Every structure is written in structure tokens, then in C-alpha cells.
């Protein structure tokens, strides 16, 4: 398959240039026709030295200008700062503060454990649907959300033993109020709305603390301070 025909010496350089004759040295019709199409290098420029179309140059130069503006616009001030210039238009009009939506907070924060259905995971995470801890009063769920919950807890006759995280530093009072209002009215739940003012008052009641136990919450609920 691989005969080294040439040995070590490089093969001779063939002179460049084309001829348009066939094996017998005759010009074939086809080739004669092609002389007019491709064999015209003696008379006029053909392939290989077409100048670059004018519009390619125009487009390139135009692009260069636009990119200059882009760098000026988004280049930041050549500092090490990330996210320096995102959208000055938005920044000028101030951050667009939209209404906090309870279902959005739920999807982002709670759904991983309590599930989209609100039913939790049997044996793992207690349900929110018809949960006495959620619906009996407004303050207990605020306490749970703010400072977490640890240890055994009975929900709807079943015992759970897991850890509910703290959110006092991760969610604003607005967000806590919105998500509690959402879960207290979703899936057929009939708890009243929770306001940010309520959340703030519970924040004032307790200093930042370790997670509650079920017994502590029960005691607080029965004996309001």
C-alpha cells in the first residue's frame, strides 16, 4: 500500500502552468470551451485575484465603528469590577421593584422539601396542606420561618424528625408575609393573610435564636406574652 517511490531525494519541482491537451496531445472540444471560461489567465484576471468586493470592506469598517461604540458603552471603566455596567438605562430609573409574589418565593425556597403539591414527603417533610401548625394561628408559622425548627414534631397525626432552616436573614418581612399568605390560601387551605407588619412584630418579640422545638412553639402559642 505504501511504496516509497521517490526514495530519499525529493521529486523534481514541476513547472507551473497548465496545458489543455489530452493524452494524444489534442485539444479536446471540452477543453477548448473551457479555455474561454477558465483558461484566460493570459488575457484578463480570472479566479485567484478577484478584488475583495466593496461591500465586504464597507461592512468590515462599519462593524469596526459599531464595535468601538459597544466597547465605550459596555467597557466599564477598565476596572476589575464585575457587573459594573449592566444596563445604565435600568439603573437610571432605579431598580424596578415589583410586588413580591408568594408563589415565586415558594417555588424558589420551599418547594424542594414541601413539594409543589404542598403534601411534603411522607416520613421526611411534613405537609402544608391542612397543617395545624400552619393554619391554627398566624404567628407560629412566622416563628418557624424566621428561626427554623428542629426535632420531632407531629403533623396531622404523623411524626416527623427533620430540620427546618432559618430564614430571618435570607428573606425580607415582605417575602415572608407573601409566602405565608400564599401557602395559607393554596391547596384549599383557609388561613388568613399574613402582613409584613405581623412579621416585623414577631421579629421584635424574639432575638435571633436557635431553631425552635415543637414544644416551645406549642407553649408560645398557648400563652401569648
Amino acid at each position: 500500500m505504501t511504496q516509497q517511490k521517490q526514495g530519499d531525494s525529493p521529486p523534481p519541482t514541476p513547472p507551473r502552468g497548465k496545458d489543455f491537451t489530452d493524452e494524444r496531445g489534442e485539444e479536446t472540444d471540452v477543453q477548448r470551451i473551457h479555455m474561454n471560461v477558465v483558461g484566460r489567465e493570459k488575457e484578463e484576471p480570472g479566479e485567484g485575484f478577484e478584488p475583495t468586493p466593496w461591500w465586504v470592506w464597507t461592512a468590515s469598517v462599519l462593524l469596526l465603528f459599531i464595535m468601538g461604540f459597544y466597547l465605550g458603552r459596555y467597557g466599564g471603566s477598565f476596572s476589575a469590577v464585575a457587573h459594573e455596567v449592566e444596563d445604565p438605562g435600568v439603573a437610571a430609573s432605579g431598580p424596578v421593584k415589583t410586588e413580591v409574589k408568594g408563589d415565586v418565593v415558594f417555588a424558589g425556597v420551599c418547594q424542594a422539601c414541601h413539594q409543589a403539591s404542598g403534601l411534603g414527603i411522607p416520613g421526611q417533610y411534613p405537609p402544608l396542606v391542612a397543617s395545624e401548625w400552619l393554619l391554627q394561628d398566624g404567628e407560629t408559622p412566622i416563628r418557624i420561618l424566621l428561626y427554623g425548627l428542629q426535632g420531632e414534631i407531629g403533623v396531622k397525626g404523623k411524626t416527623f424528625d427533620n430540620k427546618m432552616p432559618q430564614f430571618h436573614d435570607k428573606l425580607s418581612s415582605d417575602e415572608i408575609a407573601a409566602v405565608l399568605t400564599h401557602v395559607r390560601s393554596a391547596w384549599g387551605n383557609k388561613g388568613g393573610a399574613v402582613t409584613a407588619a405581623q412579621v416585623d412584630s414577631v421579629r421584635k418579640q424574639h432575638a435571633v435564636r436557635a431553631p425552635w422545638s415543637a414544644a416551645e412553639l406549642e407553649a408560645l402559642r398557648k400563652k401569648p406574652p
Partner: protein
Amino acid sequence: MSRPPAERQVSRTIAADQRLSDELTRIGIDDSAASPTVLFLASGVAWLLIGSLMGLIASVKLDLPDWLGGAGPITFGRLRPVHLNAVTYGWISLAGSGMIVWLMGRLCRTHIRWTALLFLSAILWNIGLFLGSALVILGYSGGMEWLEFPLPAAAVIALAFILFALSMFRTFAARQVEHVYVSLWYILASLTWFPLLYVIANAGLYQGVGEAAMNWWYGHNAITVWFTPIGLAGAYYFIPKVIGRPIYSYYLGLLGFWSFALFYNWNGLHHLVGGPLPTWAISVSIVASLMMFVPVLAVAVNHHMTALGHLSMIRYSPTLRFVVFGAMSYTATSFQGSLEATRSVQEVAHFTHYTVGHAHLGMYAFVTMVLFGAVYYIMPRIAKWEWPYPNLIKVHFWLSAAGIAIYFLSLTLGGWLQGLAMNTPSIPFIDTVNLTKPYLWGRAVGGTLMTIGHCVFAYHFLLVIHRAGPKRFAPVWFRKAEEVAAP
């Protein structure tokens, strides 16, 4: 055309001598390149099969996550990097090297020097790939995309590449033509760039976000300095060569090459748009990405104008069919890539399957298709055996073309919808996963078609190597040297 008969007689004899000499030269050059080229191409095809299989399994695992879910070595997170490395450093690099060896002989009009280095390189390369893949499967990944191979494997591959480059530079230095053809510019540039890039990237110079910047500079520059030049070198040679018409404009070739070298090296950080990096650096990369319109336009116009009026030839030429498909995909993927780098598109497309579709448009529809065309052109000339079943080539082409089309469209549409959903906070995250599921099935279907196409291709390739199958009519350029030399 009216010359005296005597003069015609003389010129006729000189012309005949010239033809004989030219043909002997060409056959001798092809013969000198034959063994290393076959070795590179055959290993490339083997890695193509391995890589496709890995990709297919990984793709189905996204549809059926519990399928083959019981063992670490075959989990998605290990098969996916092996797929990427096998098809890029395996198939494209090895088959591309095979094409480069053969092109080098042709374009320098001299036989290949230091072929022993090429054999050593191909063997080391395969060892490096095998070692790297095995280590990733066993859990020793380097942890950066495109750079998963741990240091021992990367070192072997770097060494293999340097040996390969040495042989190629030696051949280039011994060239018998004064003019360096445009394909050679790309090849020589990539032979210079890639070893530097690969060594710098694997040297572990950076930490934290500096490393992230290096990672994506590398990730995009591997495409810039190695995979794209392979595809472009092939397209610049095979389109004019198959048609029998010089490339349309050499001015455009120059503009295309130097703007490519200037702008493409600055690409990469647009993979981190919105990320924790100095804003100006990301913007510079976006600008460089958009400036890629210039070289892409130059190449697109050049190839289009060359093929213009001769496109009917794709009916007859398997090579042209694949290479034109590849060249058109290059234009498409580059334009898409430039637009994708901008902030407004990236806000939606980033982090989604859209980018995976884009990557496959570049690496498959462009580079891989050009390489298929190159293999179909090169193999008969060095094996002295025609492809035995032309219909298999058609089957391969349509499987590959339909496969990549389904794959690309599914992921582009699915990824875009995924991005829109992800930017709508009221849609729970899991619903952004759920909505992509039908499109991920589409991806698996496309992948299956491509994989079947590769099996057909590999089988046909084996037949040519073994000179099996029915002997077809032998076109003149497949003659052996002895036949030409005989009166």
C-alpha cells in the same frame, strides 16, 4: 491557436512528458503520506465510534435518568466529558492530522519527512486518549470543561502533538513550491498555536476566576487554533480541487486569514457573560466575537463564489457534498456564534441546551462534515482502491445530515424556550426541566441517526483499507505508479 505544425509537435511531446512527470510526482507524494495518514485516519474513525457511543448513552441518560444508573463509571457526569474528549481530541484531531499529513505532501509537492515521528505521534496520541478517558471514567477528572484529562494524559497528548508538528514543519521546510497555499496558512498557524495553547492551559497557572477566564479562553481557542483551521484548510483545498477551479479571490483569502488570526484569539469570555469577571474583559470578548463577521464573510464569499455555477457537481462528488455542507455550516455556526455572544441573546441562551446545539453545529455540521469529505477524497488515492459501495456514502451523508439537523433544531428551540422560562421567576425551576424533555428526546433521535451513519462510514472505511468489496471502474487518478510509468 494556430501555430506551425512542427512547433505543435514539439509542444505536444513536452506536454506529454510534463503530464507523466506530474502524475508520477503526485503519486509518489501520496504514497509517502499513505501509511501515517491511514494510521491517523483509522484511529480517528475508531474514536469517532467510541465518542458517538458515549454521547448517545449520555444523551439517553438525560431522558431516562435511572437507566444504567447504578454505577459511578457510567454516570452522565463522567460519560459526557469522555464523549467530548473522544470526539474532539480523538476523532477531529486524529482525522484532522491525517488530512494535514496528506495535504502537507500535496501542497508542498514533496514527500513527507520524518515519518517515524508521525507513527510515534499517532501511537502516543492514542495512548494519551485512552489513558485520559480511562482516568476520567475512573474518577480522576481535571474538572474543567475541555481540560478534563489529568496531567499525565495531557502531557502524552502534548508530546504527540509536538512530534506531529515537528514532522510537518520539516516537510514544510523542504517544500518544492514557492507559493504557500491558503490551506497551508491555516495549517501552519494551527501547528504553531495549538501546542502553545494546550501547554499553557494544562500548566495550572491560574486560580479562582482567573482560572475560569483561562478555561474559556482555552475552550474557545481550541476551536480557534485547531478545529476551525482543520475545517477551513480542508474546505479551501477540496472545494476548488474537486470542482477544478481556483479559489475565487486570494485577496479575500488574505483578509479572511489575518482577520481570523487577529480577532478569533480574543474570543471565549463571552461564555461568562453576567459572570464574576471584570466587565471590560467580557465586553472585549463580545466585540472580538462580533468582529468575526469579517473573516467569516470573507470565507463565505470566497467559497460561495468558487462553487457558484458548479453546485450541480455535488450530485456526482461525495467529497464536494460533505465539504459544501460543512462550509455552509461554518457560515451558519459563525454567524450564530457572533450573535449568541451579545448580551441580549446570551441572557436567554446562556446556561441552556441552546449552547449545546450551537457547539454541535460547529464541531459536527462544520468540522466533522468537512473531515468526512476529506476522508472520502483521500482514502482511494492512498489505498489505491475505490470506495466499493457508493450508495453507502449516500446513506452516510443523509443519516449524518438528518441527524445533525434534528439534533440542532431540537436543542436550539428547546434551549431557547428553556432560557425564556428560566428568566421568568414565576415558573418553578423544575418546569424549566420538564419543558425541555421532548426536545431532549429529539436530541437522542438525532444522535442515534448520526451514530448509525458513523457505523456505516466505519464499515466502508474498513472495506477500503482491506481493499474489499466489488472492484469498481477505476478512474484515472487511482492508477498505481507502475501503471502510469508503463508505456
